[in-house]
């Protein structure tokens, strides 16, 4: 203790004895993204075309919107595995409402409302009944998607209004799609809320030590409740975009997306045990994953193989720093 500071600084990132490269996890991610970008543009002469790049963003913006909301939840020490189930239920109910001839505005409200309702369902179970979020959301994941199956069976909903397609296929300006612009705005807002507001500090405080946060006057359960609502609404937004982009709904829609959203969050440097991380990291991680899957798609790699890459990435991202830390500790000792 060389000096006593007036207000104790709580760092966003706890694992400070890491190597310098890891302290700037975001920089590392940017380098990876640039490398993939260069590799892709060398591999295919069409890659650098602005419209092609714009197409590439459609691959990941919906998942990335969920990942930004999920980042809050993971920082607070919870997780939501039901996001893909929420998309399935929201999309199915939007389809059901569309069959009655409802307009675009109603459909969007249904999508967001279902997301909010599902988020509230998880939130009540986790914060009011104090159940572990991982089991609750494993259960609600199959409950939500199961309800989609009950409603739709092996059928398919089509026939969405023509102007509904704009949310998933429309462009705001030149090559910038509505999806992409919405993602950037939501990420910016998310970054400001998590890193520059009292609410954001409370999320970090809860993730670091929920008991200490309680004693410091943070309404832990209320904050967590809001976070589950946020993830639910983000899934609702993703459901509107995805349904609009595909123009049809099956109960198997967005299968496995919870895994990809969690991978983006972890790849973005958010500690899976809560308490540290940044939105910027998640955003860059979303670009990295989007570029990888798009690049593999250009090389005609089948989807299952891509999911192997994602699985390896999820494990590697956590394992590699641990291995490096061990090696560094060994070198210091030896």
């Amino acid at each position, binding site marked *: 203790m060389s000096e006593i500071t007036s207000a104790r600084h709580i760092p966003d990132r706890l694992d400070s004895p890491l190597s310098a490269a890891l302290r700037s996890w975001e920089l590392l991610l940017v380098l990876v993204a640039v490398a993939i970008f260069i590799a892709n543009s060398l591999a295919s002469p069409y890659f650098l075309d602005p419209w092609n790049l714009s197409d590439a963003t459609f691959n990941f913006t919906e998942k990335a919107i969920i990942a930004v909301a999920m980042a809050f939840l993971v920082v607070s020490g919870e*997780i939501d595995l039901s996001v893909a189930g929420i998309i399935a239920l929201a999309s199915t109910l939007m389809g059901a409402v569309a069959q009655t001839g409802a307009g675009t505005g109603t459909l969007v409200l249904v999508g967001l409302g279902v997301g909010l309702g599902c988020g509230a369902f998880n939130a009540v*179970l986790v914060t009011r*009944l*104090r*159940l*572990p979020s*991982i*089991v*609750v959301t*494993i*259960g*609600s*994941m*199959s*409950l*939500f*998607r*199961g*309800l989609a*199956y*009950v409603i739709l*069976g*092996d059928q398919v909903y089509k026939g969405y209004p023509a102007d509904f397609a704009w949310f998933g296929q429309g462009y705001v300006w030149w090559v910038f799609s509505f999806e992409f612009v919405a993602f950037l705005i939501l990420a910016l807002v998310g970054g400001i809320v998590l890193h520059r507001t009292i609410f954001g500090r409370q999320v970090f405080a809860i993730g670091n030590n929920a*008991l200490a946060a*309680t004693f410091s006057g943070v309404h832990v359960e209320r904050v967590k409740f809001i976070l589950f609502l946020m993830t639910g609404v983000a899934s609702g937004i993703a459901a509107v975009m995805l349904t609009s982009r595909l123009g049809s709904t099956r109960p198997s829609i967005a299968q*496995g997306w919870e*895994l990809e959203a*969690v991978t983006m969050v*972890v790849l973005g440097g958010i500690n*899976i*045990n809560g308490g540290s991380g940044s939105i910027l990291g998640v955003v860059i991680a979303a670009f990295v994953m989007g570029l990888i899957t798009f690049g593999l798609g250009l090389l005609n790699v*089948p989807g*299952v*193989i891509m*999911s*192997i890459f*994602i*699985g*390896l990435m*999820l*494990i590697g991202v*956590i*394992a590699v720093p*641990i*291995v490096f830390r061990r090696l560094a500790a060994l070198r210091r000792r030896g």
Partner: protein
Amino acid sequence: MSLIRTLLARRETLLLCAMLALLIGVTARFPEFATPASLANVFHDTSILIILALGQMAVILTKSIDLSVAANLAFTGMTVAMLNHAFPDLSILVLMGLALTMGLALGAINGLMVWRLNMPPIVVTLGTLTIYRGLAFVESGGAWVNAHEMSPAFLELPRAVVAGLPVLSWLAILAIGLSVLLFDRTPIGRAFFATGGNAVAAVYTGIDVGRTRFYAFCLSGMLAGLSGYLWVSRYAVAYVDVAGGFELNVIAACVIGGVSIAGGIGSVAGTVLGALFLGLIMNALPVIGVSPFWQMAISGAVIIAAVTINARAERSVGRNILRRKEIVL
């Protein structure tokens, strides 16, 4: 009186009562559902779930979770089916041994990452879940192995009737018997409980917590590998998406059976009853004329209901004597 009260407080009694009520309700309308042959069929149908749930129980007891069991099952099942197609003369016992070994190896990979690298089990097994299923695609190229491509012996073993029951049912009974011995009568079995109950106390009593978790993942993987062969043989087809999402049913069986997701609490009897409860519901649905599309929603609702009941039971009874009391605000 107190004996009755303790019995009533136990999850096993509760589950038995619920199952009886369900059985009576269905049988009142459809008498053929409760015949011994039909009930034996329910057990036969649930055998694989029971075997997997017993492995999962070991993992959950140590405060971990194994989401990769169904993917392990698919990968191992595809491997033995392809081997059987390529070498029809290979003995079934060799194939079963191979399935056990391969499942064990896949489980050990999970366990090593949890033990040596201290990684969160949920992340590890979420990752290996996609990797193992992806590898099943890589080795098969997405092709199916159909019944006519499997040898008669390969298909015959699980359904061969010995002493009134098919071999698959006997394997489940064997697994239950061995589990009772393992969990209640061996040091490693008690170490599973201690590791999840209170890791600090476990370390002070000389238990290697990481190694115990590793063993739990090995057991879960080994049983998943065996189930890979059983599944492929029972349904006489192997493809990449075999048992997709089945890990949720396995976890549901444990949670329904009273295994605490926070670790340290659970029993073999509870887990088996939890699996049978799910099996009974799934078998009763078509009988009472409910669309099979309800299955997923029902398992989800049952998981949530079970975990809610578990949380209440743990708070009031305190079956985990080792756990430190948390400050309740």
